[in-house]
């Protein structure tokens, strides 16, 4: 499995890494070679064991068996401190930055010795590091004020400032807009040219092919193989999922002109901190149509889904479903009007400590409680039924907390879709799901569309959004800054709109609602 780099020039080697969690083998005798100065992608579905393997290398998880060699020397890594000492750094999915502190303070955190803190020197060191690696960070900025992309750069500088020679990036692009991804890739190319070795964890094929010299593919805890970075996408996908291709077929638009089923007019709402999060949103969704909502997270999608789902107050405007006014009506009335909601935060929207069977009836308990008494055999039968038709891997009595992410999502899907909603508000339906589960969820949504449901889809996965939606609207800072028809929604155009670039140049088809206020952003 040794790559074309040659054994003499390896930055790190993992040999026979095995990690078990109870019966689950997260890593099964996994080998990995990392050449000096390469971007090495680690590809695999969720749960394939990529993150576990890298947590072992960074000392966050202790392997049950196997050995690690860094720079030709066998090392014993029992903690991140050991890993840092050996020259290994990692940027995890959840950044480990202290939000109220400045960039400088974050970078030197954990590296201070003695009681004295020389911030001025530290600041110069951070500046020097940023210069040396060509990564723009502001040493005095407070982390909480930075965008996600900037925070990620801080994480990278933090790792580099500790002289790491192996940098692990765990799904670094998950939180970035396309332009930020490009900037990240630029940075990585520069860094590897300087001799850094990067492990790039991802499950996005096109990114992997863009940035990596080699790709190692994992599946179900095993290393499937290592291939050159330019390997054909279908081939990589086949290695990853163990079957030729995947994908969903979308038929032509089904809706015809006529009254929209879901109508949103002039909708405004505040976010969690009392600041305006939505400004006069207008949109409509017809029966048999999927309308996608694109946007970088934090631009109002969450609030929009919550207002439409009855979980957040609107400050102005109206929401109607088949003519019934639903703004500020609460979840019961929203559901009664035929709206199904599949929320972004699926964990918080179920009662994890209750069994699957009870979660499945939670939206209409009274239907299963004649005279107030729970009909346990009906509840059980209902659960068996949905478990079978939605292929949920669970028993009715299992606590939802014990299920995998994909099965938790299926519980929500089953709960909502089994009631034949006429309107579906769905947020991030496949976030964190593996390819198989994602495909299943998308197929279900398309099936609902074929049956005439009006679907509003919020997703940060642009491929998914473009693949599923009949039309796309783009949210930026709580306003709709672009509306794209079926043939206009290429990722680049979407990316520009999402990043708040002037949308006028790319608008087509329908008019742009209330985009004036958002057009003052940066220009290319």
């Amino acid at each position, binding site marked *: 499995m040794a790559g074309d780099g040659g054994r003499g020039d390896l930055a790190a080697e993992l040999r026979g890494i095995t990690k*078990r*969690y*109870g019966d*689950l083998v*997260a890593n099964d005798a996994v080998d990995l070679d990392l050449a000096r100065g390469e971007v090495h992608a680690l590809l695999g579905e*969720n*749960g*394939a*064991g*990529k*993150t*576990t393997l890298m*947590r072992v290398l960074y000392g966050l998880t202790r392997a*049950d068996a196997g050995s690690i060699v860094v720079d030709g020397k066998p090392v014993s890594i029992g903690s991140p401190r050991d890993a840092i000492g050996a020259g290994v750094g990692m940027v995890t*999915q*959840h950044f480990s930055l202290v939000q109220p502190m400045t960039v400088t303070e974050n970078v030197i955190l954990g590296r201070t010795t003695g009681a004295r803190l020389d911030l001025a020197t530290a600041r110069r060191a951070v500046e020097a590091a940023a210069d040396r690696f060509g990564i723009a960070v502001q040493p005095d900025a407070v982390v909480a004020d930075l965008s996600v992309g900037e925070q990620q750069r801080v994480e990278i500088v933090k790792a580099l400032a500790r002289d790491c020679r192996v940098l692990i990036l*765990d*799904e670094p692009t*998950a*939180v970035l807009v396309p332009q930020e991804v490009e900037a990240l890739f630029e940075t990585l190319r520069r860094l590897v040219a300087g001799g850094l070795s990067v492990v790039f964890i991802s499950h996005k094929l096109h990114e992997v092919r863009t940035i990596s010299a080699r790709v190692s593919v994992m599946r179900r805890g095993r290393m499937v193989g290592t291939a050159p970075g330019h390997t054909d996408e279908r081939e990589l996908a086949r290695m990853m999922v163990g079957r030729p291709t995947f994908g969903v077929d979308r038929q032509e638009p089904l809706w015809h002109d006529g009254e929209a089923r879901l109508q949103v007019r002039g909708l405004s709402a505040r976010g969690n901190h009392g600041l305006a999060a939505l400004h006069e949103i207008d949109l409509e969704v017809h029966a048999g149509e999927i309308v996608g909502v694109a946007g970088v997270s934090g631009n109002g999608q969450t609030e929009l889904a919550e207002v439409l*789902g009855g*979980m957040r*107050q609107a400050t102005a405007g109206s929401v109607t479903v088949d003519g019934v006014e639903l703004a*500020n009506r*609460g*979840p*019961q009335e929203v*559901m009664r009007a035929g709206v199904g*909601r599949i*929320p*972004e*935060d699926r*964990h*918080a*929207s*179920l*009662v*994890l*400590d*209750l069994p699957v069977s*009870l979660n499945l009836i*939670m*939206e209409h*308990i*009274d239907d*299963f*409680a004649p005279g*107030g*008494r*729970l009909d*346990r055999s009906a509840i059980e039968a209902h659960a068996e039924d949905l478990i079978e038709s939605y292929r949920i891997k669970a028993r009715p009595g299992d606590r939802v*907390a*014990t299920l*995998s*992410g994909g099965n938790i999502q299926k519980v929500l899907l089953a709960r909502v879709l089994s009631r034949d909603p006429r309107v579906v508000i769905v947020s*991030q339906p496949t*976030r*964190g799901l593996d390819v198989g589960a994602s495909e299943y969820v998308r197929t279900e949504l398309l099936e609902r569309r074929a049956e005439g449901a009006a679907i509003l889809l919020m997703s940060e996965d642009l491929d998914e959004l473009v693949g599923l939606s009949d039309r796309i609207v783009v949210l930026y800072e709580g306003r709709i800054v672009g509306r794209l028809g079926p043939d206009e929604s290429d990722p680049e155009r979407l990316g520009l709109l999402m990043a708040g670039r002037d949308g006028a140049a790319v608008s087509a088809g329908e008019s742009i609602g209330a985009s004036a206020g958002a057009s003052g952003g940066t220009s290319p």
Partner: protein
Amino acid sequence: MAESRLGRAGMLALGAVVTILAVTGTAFIIAGANPLEAYHAYFVQPLTREFTLLEVLNKATPILFTGTAVAIAFRAGYWNIGVEGQLLMGAIAAAGIGQVVEGWSPLVVLPLMVLAGALAGAAWALVPALLRVRLGIDEVVTTLLLNPVALLVVQGLLHGPWKDPETGFPESPRIAAAAEFPQLSEFIPLIGRSRLHLGFVLAIVLIVVAWYVLARTATGLRVRAVGLSPHGARFAGIRVERTLLRVALISGAIAGVAGVSEVAGIQFRLTEGVSPGFGYTGVVVAMLGGLTMPGVLLAGLLLGDLSVGASSAVRSLQIPSQVGDVVQGTLLLVVVGAVAVYRWRTTREDDRPADEGEPDHDEPPDRPEGRAPVESPPA
């Protein structure tokens, strides 16, 4: 890692028992008693004779009420620490009615007193519940702070209008005969002479009803859902605030009936000492019982047993009665601690492989073990 979950529970249980024996044994030795004899006196002896056995049930009665009151509130995620004050309000209501019903039929008076006590307890619970539900003000603080206020009301009555006219003691006049809870020995020939009264039966009935409602009804499911995940419950269309308000009032009502039971079954008058902290012991009972109704029943009986045993050991083994409190406190801390450790360990182990399950940043923190976040009420 290969250790099964059952094995882990077993190890923890063993560790808990060893800890309890070590701590309480030390307390007994310091008190100058042989630990084995002391355990026997505390836990076994009371169960060996009919009179003391009935007294165990009698001692368990008020804490079965308060334990139930606390447990159902906690199950909904409403942290009612004000059961003590709500109990006192029920006791005042019972004593007030008991003074003015001379010559009425007990069939009228007893239901009336129970109802009035329940209303009084619920009324005392109302303000903190409204503050929590409408304004998000922490009920732990407000319910707790109302307890000494309730005691001041009792003292005000006893030193003022209700002072016993004959003795001049701060005790209300004895309640009418019609207002006394009948003793069970009057009805059930098998039961020997004892103070055990109607209140015990009410407590048992209450626990059965509470168990049924929580486990088997739509209402109970809503309460459990609200307690386990307020957001998840609200998302599913359950009216969280309304549920919390109702549970708070029912909890207060049960506490009020505990007060009625003490006045009408044991004291026959209102005194400042009508409750030696039954409301707080209720928290102990509820926690020891794992907030389940069978657990509350067992824990209430166990503490009743301990209470009778501790008071007889004062005489038989010269162990100070306070050692009983040490035993009770040790039980609480160790059992609750062991349960917390068990849940934490199993949760963590369960969660570990899920590292890769969610690449996003919205994973909820561990289990919402403590307080649920207060959410703003919907319109």
